[in-house]
């Protein structure tokens, strides 16, 4: 049998383990020119790793081809619209990458003395200052490595603050539309979580909140705009209500892309919040990351932020202040994901104040353009004005037995990454669409056409939609089977199997 009858574009790619052939090497070390030592006797037996059985042995070109082929299967923001709602998959401008590669930044070492790190400290100082200004807050820590990590840091600061007031409390409130990380964070910090039901408009109900806030409540965690993409218009009143009863207002900044340059959380009563630099500030997102989740606070929470803090001494440059007796301590090695911080600062400086304001306006405009283009074909569960994302439901399509997940799979056939499926949970069968500001009208029109065409197909050919995608190298995968029986580790084929004569 001729084994290679199809081009690599459609071929399935074996694992490196499956390509392995004993004795092959992709590298060559120079000859040892120092006396050899016995690692086990120098370091201790327990610190020396044994040979790894089955470790793949391949040549350099095989490794390169393997990963290059895999990379051609990716969908990325650099290929087209990536409308994953709530995730803000915005374009990562190339100027960020240029700046991050500047020698003095790329090669800075965290153990460099402070006098040789002034530029690096200035980057952190400036970014903190800009984020304070954008959020209307008094202080920022850049340490947390991601949004959920920022939540943990922010709520730990709240907890330390309340304890320092002699008023430790035990409950955190979160609306039923919250990101799952909010209740998870509260739980991690030792709080009891109570859920607040949203009203019929998808918003926090002040009457419900009024009943829920007693003297055991430490904070309300709220996302604004919320996860249905609508601005919480009573947020200032909610803040007043909480503050009058000694509770704090935490804002999940996941949706800050709708506010930058137009509204400041600090101005509407927020005490503490996190930002996702990999969302709002255009740093790489997802597996490539890493993320960064700075936390911004009002002055009363500042003493509790992680240490060290960057300070401007005035005459003597910047330094790191470790003398922070009330700090919750470090939450991350060194000073956070510094390379990401550089990119966020680059994004802010490249845009300038007016540019950031325009980006926000475009993000909101784009989401509303999609809403307008699809509102007659997809059910809109909440009628309030959309901000940076729009949430439909599959109510019209379920009559044909088609669910949001099926429409998302079909969207892949039209060349787009799917939108966010089945979140937020308060919308049954949600289609959550966030185009971000970078898309032009042409790309948005293509997306709208695709979604309208799928709505037609749901009527005319529901089975075809149910079995989508049809144009991908792998057809629909069995997600349920994968979740029930995950195979997370490659294991060599059984010897007997391997020795069987090939059938062909």
């Amino acid at each position, binding site marked *: 049998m001729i084994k290679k009858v199809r081009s690599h574009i459609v071929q399935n790619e074996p694992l490196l383990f499956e390509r392995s052939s004993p004795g092959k090497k992709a590298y060559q070390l120079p000859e040892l020119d120092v006396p050899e030592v016995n690692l086990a006797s120098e370091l201790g037996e327990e610190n020396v790793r044994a040979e790894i059985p089955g470790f793949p042995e391949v040549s350099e070109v095989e490794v390169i081809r393997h990963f290059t082929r895999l990379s051609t299967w990716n969908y990325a923001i650099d290929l087209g619209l990536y409308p994953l709602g709530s995730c803000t998959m915005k374009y990562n401008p190339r100027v960020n990458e240029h700046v991050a590669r500047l020698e003095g930044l790329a090669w800075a070492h965290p153990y460099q003395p402070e006098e040789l790190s002034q530029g690096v400290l200035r980057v952190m100082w400036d970014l903190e200052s800009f984020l304070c200004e954008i959020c209307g807050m008094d202080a920022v820590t850049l340490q947390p490595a991601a949004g959920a990590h920022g939540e943990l840091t922010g709520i730990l600061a709240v907890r330390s603050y309340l304890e320092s007031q002699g008023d430790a409390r035990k409950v955190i409130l979160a609306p039923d539309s919250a990101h799952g990380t909010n209740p998870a964070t509260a739980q991690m910090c030792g709080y009891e979580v109570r859920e607040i039901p949203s009203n019929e408009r998808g918003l926090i109900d002040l009457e419900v909140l009024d009943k829920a806030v007693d003297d055991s409540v430490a904070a309300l965690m709220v996302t604004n705009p919320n996860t249905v993409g609508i601005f919480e218009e009573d947020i200032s009143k909610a803040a007043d209500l909480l503050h009058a009863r000694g509770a704090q207002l935490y804002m999940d900044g996941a949706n800050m892309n709708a506010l930058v340059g137009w509204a400041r959380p600090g101005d509407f009563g927020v005490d503490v919040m996190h930002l996702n630099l990999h969302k709002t500030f255009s740093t790489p997102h997802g597996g490539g990351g890493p993320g960064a989740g700075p936390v911004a606070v009002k002055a009363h929470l500042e003493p509790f932020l992680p240490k060290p803090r960057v300070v401007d001494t005035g005459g003597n440059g910047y330094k790191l202040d470790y003398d922070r007796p009330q700090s919750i301590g470090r939450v991350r090695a060194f000073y956070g994901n510094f390379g990401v911080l550089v990119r966020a600062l680059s994004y802010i400086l490249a845009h300038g104040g007016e540019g950031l304001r325009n980006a926000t306006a475009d993000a909101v405009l784009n989401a509303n353009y999609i809403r307008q283009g699809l509102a007659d074909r997809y059910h809109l569960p909440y009628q309030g004005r959309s901000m940076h994302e729009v949430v439909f439901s599959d109510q019209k399509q379920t009559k044909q037995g088609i669910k949001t997940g099926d429409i998302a799979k079909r969207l892949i056939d039209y060349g787009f990454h799917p939108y966010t499926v089945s979140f937020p949970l308060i919308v*049954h069968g949600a289609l959550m669409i966030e185009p971000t500001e970078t898309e032009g009208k042409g790309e948005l029109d293509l997306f709208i056409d695709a979604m309208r065409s799928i709505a037609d197909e749901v009527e005319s050919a529901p089975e075809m939609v149910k079995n989508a995608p049809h144009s991908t190298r792998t057809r629909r995968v069995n*997600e349920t089977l994968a979740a029930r029986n995950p195979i997370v580790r490659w294991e060599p084929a059984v010897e007997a199997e391997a020795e069987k004569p090939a059938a062909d």
Partner: protein
Amino acid sequence: MYPKELLYTKEHEWVKVDGDTAKIGITSHAQDQLGDIVFVELPKVGDKAHATQSFGTVESVKAVSDIYAPVSGDIVAINEDLIDAPEKINEDPHVGGWLISVKISDKTELDTLMTADDYAAYVSAESES
């Protein structure tokens, strides 16, 4: 659709009362909303269930959801079959997909639960809103 001999909660659990014990599960409507269930986390025999409080979780391909106890009491049995075959909840929610069995400590708690007809009306009102 909803068996007459069961009682129902607003959180979409059902209870089957047999003398002093109550078998508890989630309704057909609940499993349909959750989608394919892939994992179930149950308490141990001997733990206590407290009415309206969570006693375990079900995880579907979409989400993880708490399951709330309709009545209080000592847990006397759990459905071990679900550990390897959580899909039983999807396939047979009202019988084979039961979750736990409880020795009821306060029978008056049953008075707050809904009949099959009331629950059917509750579900259709909820899905219209």
